[in-house]
């Protein structure tokens, strides 16, 4: 199989071809192989922070979204040990923030929730941190709720790379990391964010929401109400 130009890796025993310059994640997605991920979005430069996409390559764990595919790599991904660790990381993301799915407008369209379903998460397992985080309703059309931020920096990247605005950034350190916006007041309403910006559309959770559209699509008819995140993310469109 494959053109003379293409090279091959194996993922869980399946031969997957790739082009020079592609990462393991690129190759997997192109071949319809799902590796769970949250901070990765093929439209943007790989980031490598959520670590959900960690795979085992020739005995070593690496983030598949940042690791270049190299001829002959034997990649293990859909194995019990890694899936258990992905589940633990997902639970960590839930307890470090305040994620209340039943009360969240994003429910059903949320990638964090969908990954949790996919990995079979039945409880948060760890004790909740219940952090005090600020919500910001100052923008006329966009709501920022830091309680749901998972620090994937997709909004940071989209604003910088696509919108050319730098509306978002991270400050603080460690567990005190926080999403900041580009205004002296620290309020979203005082930035030049527009509702049409790419940064508004890329949030995998409900941290950035367009106002007055919360229930335009009723619960029960949303993306992940009918499809798994695996179906959605390997089926061409990225949500």
């Amino acid at each position, binding site marked *: 199989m494959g053109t003379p130009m293409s090279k091959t890796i194996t993922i869980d025993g399946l031969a997957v071809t790739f082009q020079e310059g592609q990462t393991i994640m690129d190759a997997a997605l192109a071949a319809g192989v799902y590796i769970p991920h949250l901070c990765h979005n093929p439209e943007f430069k790989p980031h490598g*922070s959520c*670590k959900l996409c960690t795979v085992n390559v020739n005995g070593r764990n690496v983030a598949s979204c940042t690791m270049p595919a190299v001829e002959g790599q034997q990649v293990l991904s859909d194995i019990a040990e890694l899936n258990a660790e992905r589940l633990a990381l997902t639970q960590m993301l839930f307890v*470090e923030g305040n994620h209340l799915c039943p009360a969240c407008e994003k429910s059903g369209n949320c990638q964090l929730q969908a990954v949790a379903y996919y990995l079979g998460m039945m409880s948060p397992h760890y004790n909740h941190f219940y952090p005090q985080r600020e919500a910001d309703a100052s923008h006329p059309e966009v709501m920022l709720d830091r309680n749901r931020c998972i620090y994937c920096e997709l909004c940071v990247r989209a604003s910088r790379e696509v919108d050319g605005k730098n509306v978002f950034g991270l400050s603080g350190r460690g567990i005190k990391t926080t999403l900041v916006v580009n205004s002296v007041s620290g309020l979203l309403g005082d930035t030049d964010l527009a509702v049409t910006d790419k940064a508004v559309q890329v949030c995998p959770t409900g941290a950035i929401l367009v106002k007055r559209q919360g229930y335009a699509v009723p619960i029960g008819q949303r993306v992940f109400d009918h499809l798994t995140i695996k179906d959605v993310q390997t089926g061409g469109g990225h949500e």
Partner: protein
Amino acid sequence: MQQFEYSDISRMLTPILARHEGDASRLLQVLLEVQDACHSIPSEAIDRIAAHFDVPRVNVEGVAGFYSFLSTRSVGEYRMLFSSNITDQMLGKDDLMQYLCNKLWVEPGKVSEDGLVSVDSTSCTGMCDQGPAALVNGWPLTNLDQNRLDLICELIRARRPVVEWPPMLFEVADNIRRSDVLLGEYLAPGAAIRAVLARGAKETLAEIDKSNLRGRGGAGFKTASKWSFCHAAIVEEEGGIICDVGGQPERYIVCNADEGEPGTFKDRVLLNSYADLVFEGMTVGARVVGAGKGFLYLRGEYRYLLAQLEKVLQKRREAGLLGDNILGQDGFSFDIEIHLGAGAYICGEESALIESLEGKRGRPRNRPPFPVTHGYKGRPTVVDNVETFACAAKIAEKGSAWFAAMGTAQSTGTKLLSISGDCASPGIYEYPFGVTVSQILADCGARDPYAVQVSGPSGTMISWKEFDRRIAFEDLPTAGAIVVFQRKRDPFQAALNFVHFFAHESCGFCTPCRVGTELQKKIMDKIASGHGTASDLVEMKSLGHILKTMSHCGLGSSAANPVLDTLEKFPDVYERKLKALAFEPAFDLDGALETARQITGRDDEWAHL
């Protein structure tokens, strides 16, 4: 300390910004000066600085929020930061800090109501051989006791500038207890560079290779390999080659003096008394890889060394050992710039250090590519430890055979050890590699040693059963920290201290480390408060596995070492603290009712659970 009374932040900023010019890599250096002047980074200053460097405001805010020594809220005219390493704790840090807080009427971590002073903890300041230690407005205080704190309290109340405080408060001793070839034999400035010029760059690389010199920062990567990868790296940009093999000046030599591993202080001594040797080694490296520019990344805690290091650099420039055409060699140009850190252990990781050098948050990069090919500003960069450069200078002067004759097969040469804890003579000990722990303990006058932390929290804790092990890459690798614990100490307290350290220093980039170190801290606190159960130990082992296998960098993957080591070697210290129950909730239901009891003024039986 000067009194800054600028009403206009702009007026205060103008000279600072002018001095640092327009390159955004100076951002962190500017913020350090602003913090000094204003005791905080005011919001208006962030705007002005962002405009000056033409970077988004969020970037400046991101950097200001990342480093411990910077603060967007005022920390008071006097900021006392007590070193919170386990060695400082063993010497009474907690009581002393509370004593000072009581005297000054401040709560730890808060600023006094008059805005005069704040008292808080900070990660190890590298004064473990002369603690308890602290920093006051960045200046190191050593050998603290109640008498000294009484004096400090008076000085603060009298608003005496720190520069006028009695010098004896700031005395830092080298405490060199055992010297070998590195500390004992003098190298005349320029001798190693002359040897390199006589021998040739390629031949010098061959000597470093044959010497089998390995990085002294702990990881032990072969120095010659790093140098030759950097030399061989070719950088292409938009199709064109902009950096040819060995080409100048697009290669960098970086000396990692971010000595943040708690318990390590050898680089402090090297930079204080052997700076010429270190700079000589950097210059040797520059000649070998073809670098035109070098950086010394000096941890913020060692800022007191900055002025004297600048003097050493100036003397070397005047002697023709730095600058253009070094020692008359046509085309051999190299100079060194000192860049200050600002309180972030993660910047000891080489790619985070490079980010910090570029004036950014100290976040470890994704690898590949590695710094040797894509380092500072995307150019080939060598990052080596202070001691590695000192060794390289010696090898350049005396040759590989001389060096390789010392130590063991896989660990040639000598190693500087920073020894502290329960021993009569804490300080710096230089040994050939291969020395046993028991030999070290005998030499430093260890009192009834029971456990030894080798290479700091990220290293290994060994028990008395393992004291015949050797310091070498093939057995116990170390960046140099040796902390001795005597029998009466509780290894659990050390592990507890270390998990707090890692949670505080996690950069927050990746999920496993950001959340995992915090979870680990919470569980250890639960056990410390007497509420731990057997299931908590199981949980910590599983967390440890996730930290080790899923983390982005070495900080996360070693953050569980203190817990896993003590659980394995001293399980009884945990079991003694556990409740007999199988499960104990972390949430204290009765405690949660305390607020309600206070509001209602009730304390009867029915107000309790």
